[in-house]
């Protein structure tokens, strides 16, 4: 050290050492601050670690698969669900390269080719959020959502979450389908319930059922009883033109169609062409040429409440496996609804027919009742004029007898008509009572012929009775006499000028009465109908009468436990055959 003086040096040392004291205090302050900062940092570190643990736990607890990337497509975080969802090898996710991860994932997608392009577009446009649905080749559907990740308002990357929504989608689809089905069922029910015209009804049923089943086309084959009693197999179509079926004829009771027409359970085939029941009978082995292509097949019987087979609903689809158990249940339900509706429609139709028949009958009855009254009134007016002029004594007795005879005949006619009406009323009310006693049927037959001798004469008919001397049974003599009356007058009315042959014989425990005329006969389809109430009126009003005679006759015979039918032989005319049990024992 050069010159400078010891005092100067001592002063410098003093200052330096005083400074050292202040520096020490400053150091302690700094250390205290450092310590405090360190403690705060440790606390924050702990909080951060806890927060990170919570975030990791949250990330792992979520049901979504999550991937986090930065703006350059570098993976910054992910959860194990993401790895598991795509079965990602550790080396792939470990590369932290989103593109490489996508290379592994994309083959799972149906549109694998668009996989990278979609992600690139999102990276390029950097929308706040993105949402897309991923359809996988195995049928699963994933929902992918991404959102920009902001830290202190800076875009630091994007969070991608993937959720398997397959079940939800299926449920939604099922619910939608269920709603559609319910809506259709509701509509179907409304349409069916509001439709009483049979043909329109079955068309509505066919259309609704085809739509509900998801079939490409459907048909409803059903039987319909015609006015003449004949049953016809008719059909309606939906989803296919009528020409598509016209040339193939109706389905027959083959092993495939038979169960449906027999009212057995539903028939459902995923692929009818592979079904052994299919196409074993000629002439159409398998699918006839030009037939609509059918692989999925479903058929359901339509049965009435009383078990009558109304028809069958048939559905087809060119693809296999279209109809499910659920389809079958729905269509079975529709078939049941349809059956009720068709029953109702038929009842309605019958009720309408009955009302029409009654109205027709009332018109005829009025006419028939009025007819005897006219000559009766004329005869009474004629007598009244003679009495008024005081000329009654001058009238030849023969003339008077004629007048009273005519009047008497008209009264008898009126009485007969009224009796018939009363009988029908009694029968309808179930009040037809029999007063059985031992009766000789041969005597009753002969007496009936004698009693109607005048009417037979007027009809130029000769009635001949062929019978054993006696044939006794326990019957109501008045009612049996009424049977003979009806059958003989019926023969005289329908076969005027022709002989009437009446035979009475015993067969085992029955008495058999046959009344044969030689008239025009009765067509086969009318042989049952003529025993219906009012039926005569409907067919041949020209012969007169209320058309109740044969109806009353059958009721009397059946009340005795017997039967009546009409037969037609090889020749002209008709034969009414009555069988009456000899006693009143029930059979």
């Amino acid at each position, binding site marked *: *050290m*050069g*010159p*400078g*003086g010891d005092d*100067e*040096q001592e*002063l*410098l*040392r*003093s*200052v*330096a*050492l*005083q*400074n*050292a*004291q*202040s*520096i*020490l*205090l*400053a*150091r302690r302050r*700094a250390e205290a601050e*450092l310590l405090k900062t360190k403690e705060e940092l440790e606390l924050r570190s702990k909080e951060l670690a806890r927060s990170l643990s919570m975030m990791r736990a949250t990330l792992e607890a979520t049901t979504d698969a999550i991937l986090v990337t930065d703006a350059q497509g570098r993976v910054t975080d992910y959860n194990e669900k993401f790895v598991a969802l795509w079965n990602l090898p550790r080396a792939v996710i470990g590369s932290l390269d989103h593109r490489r991860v996508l290379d592994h994932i994309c083959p799972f997608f149906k549109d694998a080719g668009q996989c990278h392009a979609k992600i690139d577009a999102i990276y390029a446009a950097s929308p706040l959020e993105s949402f897309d649905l991923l359809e996988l080749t195995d049928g699963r559907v994933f929902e992918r959502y991404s959102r920009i990740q902001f830290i202190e308002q800076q875009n630091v990357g994007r969070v991608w979450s993937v959720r398997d929504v397959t079940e939800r989608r299926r449920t939604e689809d099922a619910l939608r389908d269920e709603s559609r089905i319910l809506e259709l069922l509701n509509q179907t029910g409304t349409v069916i319930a509001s439709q009483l015209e049979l043909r329109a009804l079955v068309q509505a049923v066919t259309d609704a059922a085809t739509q509900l089943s998801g079939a490409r086309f459907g048909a409803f084959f059903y039987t319909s009883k015609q006015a003449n009693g004949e049953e016809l197999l008719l059909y309606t179509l939906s989803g296919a033109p009528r020409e598509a079926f016209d040339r193939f004829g109706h389905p027959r009771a083959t092993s495939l169609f038979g169960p449906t027409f027999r009212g057995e359970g539903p028939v459902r085939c995923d692929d009818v062409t592979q079904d052994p029941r299919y196409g074993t009978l000629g002439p159409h082995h398998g699918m006839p040429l030009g037939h609509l292509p059918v692989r999925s097949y479903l058929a359901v019987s339509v049965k009435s409440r009383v078990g009558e087979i109304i028809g069958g609903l048939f559905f087809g689809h060119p693809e296999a496996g279209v109809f499910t158990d659920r389809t079958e249940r729905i269509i079975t339900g529709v078939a049941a609804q349809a059956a009720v509706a068709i029953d109702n429609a038929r009842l309605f139709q019958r009720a309408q027919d009955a009302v029409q028949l009654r109205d027709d009958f009332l018109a005829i009855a009025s006419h028939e009742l009025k007819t005897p009254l006219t000559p009766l009134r004329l005869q009474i007016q004629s007598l009244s004029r003679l009495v008024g002029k005081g000329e009654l004594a001058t009238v030849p007795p023969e003339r008077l007898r004629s007048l009273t005879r005519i009047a008497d005949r008209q009264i008898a006619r009126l009485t007969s008509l009224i009796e018939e009406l009363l009988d029908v009323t009694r029968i309808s009310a179930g009040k037809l009572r029999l007063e059985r006693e031992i009766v000789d049927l041969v005597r009753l037959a002969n007496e009936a012929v004698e009693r109607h001798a005048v009417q037979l004469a007027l009809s130029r008919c000769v009635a001949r009775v062929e019978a054993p001397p006696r044939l006794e049974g326990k019957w109501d003599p008045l009612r049996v006499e009424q049977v003979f009356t009806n059958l003989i007058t019926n023969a005289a009315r329908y076969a005027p000028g022709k002989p009437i042959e009446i035979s009475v014989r015993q067969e085992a425990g029955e008495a058999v009465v046959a009344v044969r005329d030689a008239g025009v006969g009765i067509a086969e389809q009318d042989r049952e109908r003529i025993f219906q109430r009012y039926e005569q009126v409907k067919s041949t009003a020209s012969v007169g009468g209320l058309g109740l005679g044969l109806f009353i006759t059958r009721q009397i015979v059946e009340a005795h436990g017997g039967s009546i039918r009409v037969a037609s032989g090889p020749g002209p005319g008709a034969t009414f055959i009555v069988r009456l049990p000899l006693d009143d024992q029930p059979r």
Partner: protein
Amino acid sequence: MPIPTEPIGSIPRPLPLIAAAAEHGFDSPKLEPLLEEAVRDTIARFEATGSPVITDGEQRKFHNFWTYCVDGLWNTAPDGFKIPFTAGHVRRMPRLKARPFKYKVYADRYLDEALRHAHVPVKQAVISPSALSLMYPADGIAGYSRDQFIDDLLNEHETEVRRCLDKGAHKVQIDFTEGRLAIKIDPTGGLLTSFIDLNNLALGRFSVADRQRIGVHTCPGGDRDSTHSADVDYAELLPSLFHLKAGNFYVSLAGERDRIRVLRVIREHLKPDQKVFVGVVATIDPHLDTPEEVRDRVLEAAEYIPLAQLGTTDDCGFSPFSDDTSTSRDTAFAKIRARVLGTALASEILGAS
């Protein structure tokens, strides 16, 4: 990668500038054209040496590397402590008279100007807080405690370093030439420890990354070809020196009597994250070092210091005091060129080029 080499800082001012300053005063506006020319010329000649990192030669630092930031402050007096040099002359520090302690100028102002001219990285030297701490008087300042002064000092130093870093200084070098002086004043080492503490309080305010761009320079203090503390054993200073929280150390070595002993001490105390730039040209020695001499000094240092942690520098600034004319600008640049070439030769030999 070649062995890095950096200057310490000061280059002798041009003589016309020194003369004008003597005539008009350092703060005269008349000096401005000369100062501008001095800076431009210094940088041009610095770059011409091939030095990969340069300085502005501290052409605008008045009066010296120690007091440039407080020179001319209203609240200072020129009657501070005297720093005696072996050549017999004395340099006097300013004394703080009143609060507050604020720098008059921050070194980044010099950096701004240098960067406008430079084509290579520029480093900036600043004075250490420990050196400036001696400005506070022994009898204190009314209403301004020593503690408050220390706080203000640290804040001002931090501000200066941060401004230089922010403006792109290649390195910010803290001149800590008072290290040896502290031992000289207080042989117990207590003062040196407090200086280290004070400087570490400042360095502790920077990040680890920042500290890799901060270095500390120590030397015996060079002025008029003499030192203020070359007689203090380096072995007493260096162990404490490497406790400073800096990434780089610029240690004068070429002028040391026993370089091997110094290198051994450095090897023993250098930490893995620290680099040491050893002085390979003796700035106060009028002898012109040759590149070969420099090369040999580098090879010698490389035997003790891992190559990855080794750099070269000048022993000290060539003219820490602005009015020093003991070394010419030509000599300074010739020595710098020798440092650059010699370091390159050594790099080649060591396979580090």
